[in-house]
C-alpha cells in the first residue's frame, strides 16, 4: 500500500490555518484519495496557537499526524516554527512565511494560499484540484488575488531549495 502523506499546518488564530487545511484536504479529496483532516478549535480564534493535520493516501486510519511523522510542515507565523518542528520527520519539508520575497503579496490575508502554492510543489496532487479546492473555500471576489498568491508561493518554492528537516 502506498504510504500516507502527512501534512501539518500551524499558525495563530485568525491567520487562516483552518481554511488552508480545508483547501488542502479538499484538493486531495478531489484528486480521489482517502482523506482525513483534524483540527482543534474553540478558544483558538482568540489569537492563540492553532494547528491542523491533513493525511491522505489510499487508506487513512487515524485523523491525527503522529509526532515526528509529518512529511510537510507549513507554518504561517515565524514564532510558531520551533513549537511545531517536532512534528516533522527526518527529511520532511518545512515551509514558513520567510520563503516569500518581501512585498510579494498584494493582500497579506492570502499568505495561507501563497504558502499552499509552495506546498503544492512537493505533493502529488494535480494543479487543477488545487485551484478548484481554493475557489470552493473562498468568496468569488477573492479568487483573483488568491490565484496570484498561489502562483507567487509556487514560484518561490520552485526557485530556491526548500528547507529540509535534518
Amino acid at each position, binding site marked *: 500500500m502506498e504510504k500516507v502523506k502527512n501534512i501539518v499546518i500551524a499558525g*495563530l*488564530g485568525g491567520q487562516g490555518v483552518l481554511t488552508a487545511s*480545508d483547501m488542502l*484536504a*479538499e484538493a486531495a*479529496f478531489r484528486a480521489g484519495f*482517502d*482523506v*482525513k*483532516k*483534524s*483540527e*482543534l*478549535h*474553540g*478558544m*483558538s*480564534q*482568540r*489569537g*492563540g*496557537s492553532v494547528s491542523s493535520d491533513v493525511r491522505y493516501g489510499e487508506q*487513512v*486510519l*487515524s*485523523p*491525527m499526524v*503522529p*509526532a515526528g511523522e509529518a512529511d510537510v510542515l507549513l507554518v504561517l507565523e515565524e*514564532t*510558531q516554527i*520551533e*513549537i511545531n518542528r*517536532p512534528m516533522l520527520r527526518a527529511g520532511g519539508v518545512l515551509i514558513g512565511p520567510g520563503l516569500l520575497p518581501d512585498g510579494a503579496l498584494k493582500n497579506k490575508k492570502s499568505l495561507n494560499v501563497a504558502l499552499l502554492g509552495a506546498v503544492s510543489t512537493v505533493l502529488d496532487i494535480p494543479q487543477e484540484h488545487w485551484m478548484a479546492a481554493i475557489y470552493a473555500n473562498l468568496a468569488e471576489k477573492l479568487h483573483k488575488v488568491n490565484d496570484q498568491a498561489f502562483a507567487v508561493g509556487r514560484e518561490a518554492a520552485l526557485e530556491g531549495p526548500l528547507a529540509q528537516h535534518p
Partner: protein
Amino acid sequence: MTSAERQLLSGDDAVALAALHAGVRLGTGYPGTPSTEILETFDRLGGHAQWSPNEKVALEVALGVAFAGARTLVTMKHVGLNVAADPLFTATYTDVEGGLVIVSADDPGMASSQNEQDNRHYSRAAAIPTLEPVDSQQAYDFTMLAFEISERWKIPVMLRITTRVCHSKTIVIPRGPVSGVAEPAFEHKIPARVMIPAYAKPAHHRLRTKLAEITAWNEAEGPIQETTGDANLGVVTTGISAVHAREAAPEASHLTIGMTYPLPMERIRAFAAGVERLLVVEEGDPVLVDDLRTAGIDAEGKPEMYRFGELDVARVRRILAGDTSAEPVPPKGKPPELCQGCAHREVFQALRDLDCIVAGDIGCYTLGVLPPFSAMDTCVCMGASIGVGLGLRHALPEDQARRVVSVIGDSTFVHSGLTGIAEMVYNPPATGHLVMILDNGTTAMTGLQEHPGTGRLLDHSTTNKLSFEGIARAMGVQNVQVVETTDKSLSLKDVIAELLAKPETSLLITRQPCVLAAPKIRFYDKAAAESARGHTCSAAVAD
C-alpha cells in the same frame, strides 16, 4: 449536500446531514465546542433548528417533540449533559414515540473545556443506549441507526462523539433521505409519560426489559467491526481509539464496538477466547475495561497515565508496549487572549485596579484570568459566578466581602444566571453583592451564536428579546445600572467602586458588541429593518 455522492465532511456536519435525511422535525441544543456546528449545519441544510437557553430546556423541548411522535435531535457538549441530567434520568423511563437522539460531544484533552469528563458514565447511570462513531461515515450511519433504535424500543438514544470525531473531516457516502417518517399526532399515554411513583415503578421494569432486548440485538446484529489478525494480540476499542489502534497495531486482531451501552458481552467474550493477550484501548476513563472485568473477562487496560488527555497513534503504541516512561512534553504554544479592542479588557483592568475578588464564569471573558489582567479568582461551571460570589460574600470578613464581584456573560446569564439572581435577592449577604453582566451581544466563545438576549434566532432572523435590566428590576435587585463601555463620560472604575460601597444588591451591565460580532450584528439589523419595511409596503398594498 443531499445527494448520495462521496463527500468530505466533519463529524458534526455528518450528524447534521443524517438528521436531515432521517426526517428530524426539530433540532434543539445549546452551543458548546465541539458540538456547536451540528445545529448550524442542520439549519443551513434546510432543517429546523433552534438554540435553547440551556441544555435542560433543550432536552425537555426535544422530549415534547418526541411525545408528539416526531423525530428530534438535541445537541450539547459533555458538560452540557450535566445541566440536562435531571430530565435525562427520567426521559429513559418514558416511552418516546418519535425518535429522540441526544448528542453528547465529549472533549478528552480539554481543547476548550473546564474538565474532561467521560459521558459513557451517563450511559450506565441513566440507562441510555449509546452509540460511538469512529469517523464521519459512522457519525452519519450511527445517527440514522440511533433514530431506528429509538423508535423501535421507544427509548432515547445517546450518540457520544468526541472532539476528534466532531472536528475531523473524513469521507462520507450518505444513504439519502429516508421515507415513511411518522407525522406528529398526540395520543394520551399517561402511564408511559407521567413518572409519578405508581407509573415510574413499572416504567423502570420496562426500561430494563428494553435494554435486555437491545443487548440481544447488539450481540446479533449490532454495529461491530471485527478484523481477524494475529491471535497473540486482540485489541478491543471504541470511538476514535479504534483508528489509532488499527494504525498502531495493523497485525493484531481488532474488535471495534459501535454500541457501547448496553454492551455485546458475549461477542467480546468470544473474541477474547480467540486471542492470547486481550487489551482494551479506550480514551478517558477505564469504563469499557471495567465492564469486561465485571463480566469475568480477563482484559488488560491502559496504564493510569493514559487516562489524561487524548490518545493518538504514538500513545497507543506506548500502551501496546506497556511503556510508562515519561512522555515527551510538547512545546508550549501561544495561549489565547482577549481580542484587541474587546470591551472586556476595560472591565478586567478596572477589577484588577480595584483589587476585587472576582467570581468568574464560562466564556471568552474567562480569559480575564490571564496576564496582564489576572483578574479572576474562581471559575467552575456555567452560572456558578453568582452562587460562588454570594458564598464568598457570606463567609469572608467584611473588608474582603465588599470586594467580591460576580462576572458573567450575556449568553451564560440566560443559560444559568437567572436563578443566581433569585438567590441573591432571596438571601442577600449583609454587605450586599455586585453582579456584572458583560453583555457583548453574542455567544462569542463558541463562534458567535445567538441567544435569548440578542433578539435573534439561530438563523439570525429577529425574535423577542430578553431585557436583563428589566428582569433584574422585576426580580427586586436594588440597583440596576447599564454602562455602554464606549461612553467615555463616566469611569467604569468609579461606577464599580460606588456599587461596592453600598450594602445592597446590584446588577451592573456593561454593554458593547463583541468586536468579532459587530459587523455581523450590523448586517443582521440592516436585513431585519429592510424586511420590516418590505412587510409594511406589502401590507399597505394589501389594504
